[in-house]
């Protein structure tokens, strides 16, 4: 999470974020159609049928590896990105901020720690570029994706793995690890979708994730020149309250369902010896709700790109000089665009 007064991604990272979302969602839809096959029988058919679903999963997995294989070195080689690297490294203040956040939630602290503040009208010089929650998201997703890619590659051809380790059990260990890590990531992405799509300042989507920094109207001059960050000019959409409540419930149900299913399921990803229960209607509904939340995330990701295109078009139209178009009778006519939505 970035402060409202900061731009968020570079042009390349904006593109990477959208493509990452697309590949990760395809991986979820194909992977969990298989893992929760009893509940998501319909999704297998949609994702390539029983003979195609794994091919699509592996193609998306390879795309993810290629994508991150390009982006990570690019970020490390680009000086502007390297200079920001320090901002995402964990610091002692993050621990202090977390402890203070817990106290704040319990009513034992008057305010949130500066390293936990994201919006709330603080200026860029009053809060770090990224809060401890934002750092957490970056590092948790990085480690999860890395481990998922490695374990995914290892179980790509099981016969090789069996021959290499001279053991079949090691394959099941990697398979279970891959599946359970996927469940953890699934829960994280559901929360991430809710966090960035339903914050009152951003609802229905945090456009800064889709708009390169260079096009984000932000302020990096002398903060004393301005009283506020301009947050008071934001107006909440009327649908925010009910949409957030509904989505909040769906996210909680989705997260709890996939977690419970992973614990209760016989076989994959948890071995039969640890099984507690077998199928249920409630669990089927819950897991489908979880997949719906992911679908909302994918739709919001696409919608963010639509908003970016719309915003850029509006800016171009505002910056375009007034044109004189000769009419058919030879007289000149002036076409002037009215005020756009971006003026609001």
């Amino acid at each position, binding site marked *: 999470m970035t402060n409202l007064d900061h731009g968020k991604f570079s042009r390349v990272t904006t593109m990477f974020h959208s493509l990452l979302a697309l590949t990760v969602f395809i991986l979820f839809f194909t992977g969990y159609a*298989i893992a929760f096959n009893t509940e998501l029988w319909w999704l297998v058919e949609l994702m390539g049928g029983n003979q195609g679903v794994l*091919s699509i999963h592996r193609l998306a997995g390879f795309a993810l590896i290629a994508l991150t294989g390009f982006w990570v070195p690019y970020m490390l080689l680009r000086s502007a990105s390297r200079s920001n690297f320090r901002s995402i490294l964990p610091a002692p203040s993050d621990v202090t901020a977390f402890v203070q956040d817990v106290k704040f939630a319990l009513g034992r602290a008057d305010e949130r720690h500066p390293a936990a503040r994201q919006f709330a009208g603080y200026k860029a010089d009053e809060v770090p570029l990224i809060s401890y929650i934002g750092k957490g998201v970056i590092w948790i997703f990085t480690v999860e994706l890395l481990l998922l890619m490695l374990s995914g590659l290892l179980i790509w051809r099981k016969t090789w793995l*069996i021959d290499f380790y001279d053991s079949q059990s090691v394959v099941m260990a990697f398979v279970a690890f891959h599946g359970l890590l996927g469940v953890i990531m699934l829960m994280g992405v559901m929360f991430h979708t809710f966090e960035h799509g339903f914050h009152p300042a951003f609802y229905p989507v945090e456009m800064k994730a889709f708009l390169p920094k260079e096009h984000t109207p932000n302020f990096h001059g002398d903060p004393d020149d301005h009283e506020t960050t301009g947050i008071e000019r934001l107006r909440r959409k009327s649908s925010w309250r009910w949409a957030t409540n509904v989505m909040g419930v769906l996210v909680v149900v989705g997260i709890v369902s996939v977690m419970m299913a992973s614990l209760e399921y016989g076989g994959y990803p948890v071995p039969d010896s640890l099984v507690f229960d077998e199928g249920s209607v409630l669990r089927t509904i819950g897991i489908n709700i979880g997949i719906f939340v992911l679908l909302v995330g994918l739709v919001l990701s696409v919608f963010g790109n639509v908003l970016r295109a719309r915003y850029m078009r509006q800016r171009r139209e505002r910056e375009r000089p007034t044109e004189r178009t000769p009419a058919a009778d030879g007289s000149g006519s002036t076409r002037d665009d009215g005020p756009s939505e971006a003026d609001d």
Partner: protein
Amino acid sequence: MTQDESSGQVMSQGVMSTGEGMRIFPDVEACIDCGGCVVACKRTWDREIDNQRIDITTMAEGVAGPQGENADKTGRLAAGENPGETSLPMQCYHCENAPCVSVCPTNALQKEDDGFVSVHEDLCVGCQYCLSGCPFGAPQFPDSNDGAAQIFGTGGIMDKCTGCRERQEVQKGPACAEECATDAILVGGAGEIADELEARDSQPFFNDEAMAIIFGEEDAQLFQ
């Protein structure tokens, strides 16, 4: 029926009973690695040349047992001694606690009411988890070199020994067991197989863990 001259015991043919509740189990003392079972299976089910629903694994090849080639392999194995060259018909044993059924994410592998473990082809996604779950090498992937399966490294549809279910439903034994010249593939109830091995003065080749998988905890006690 044949007469075992050395012991005077009466031995059954390999197939003792068929249909519901049947078990398939190898007698390694009897197997001579002739390949008859492999040919019978291929011929009966018209399998491709590289798809073997039953295969004979030979261990300690060329190593003679202390009392000749076929002397008391399972007894020596149980005593922790070298059993010499041992051939083992490997196929699907339609396990009571089938690990393949347990690990299959799509329920393509199912333990049927009559005891057979069957593959539902319309549910199999070719993930090959059964390959890593089965201790006996039963799952085969004959389509793994075709089309998308070859490009993406998925297994295609899994294929394995069916226990000749259709044959058993009409009171015929599995093709491999019927064809076996030395009656090394035993088919029948757990009790019948245990009694037959005892009559032959033979023991199971597998350890206790594998026996519990194949026969279940309770029936595995019959072989103690």
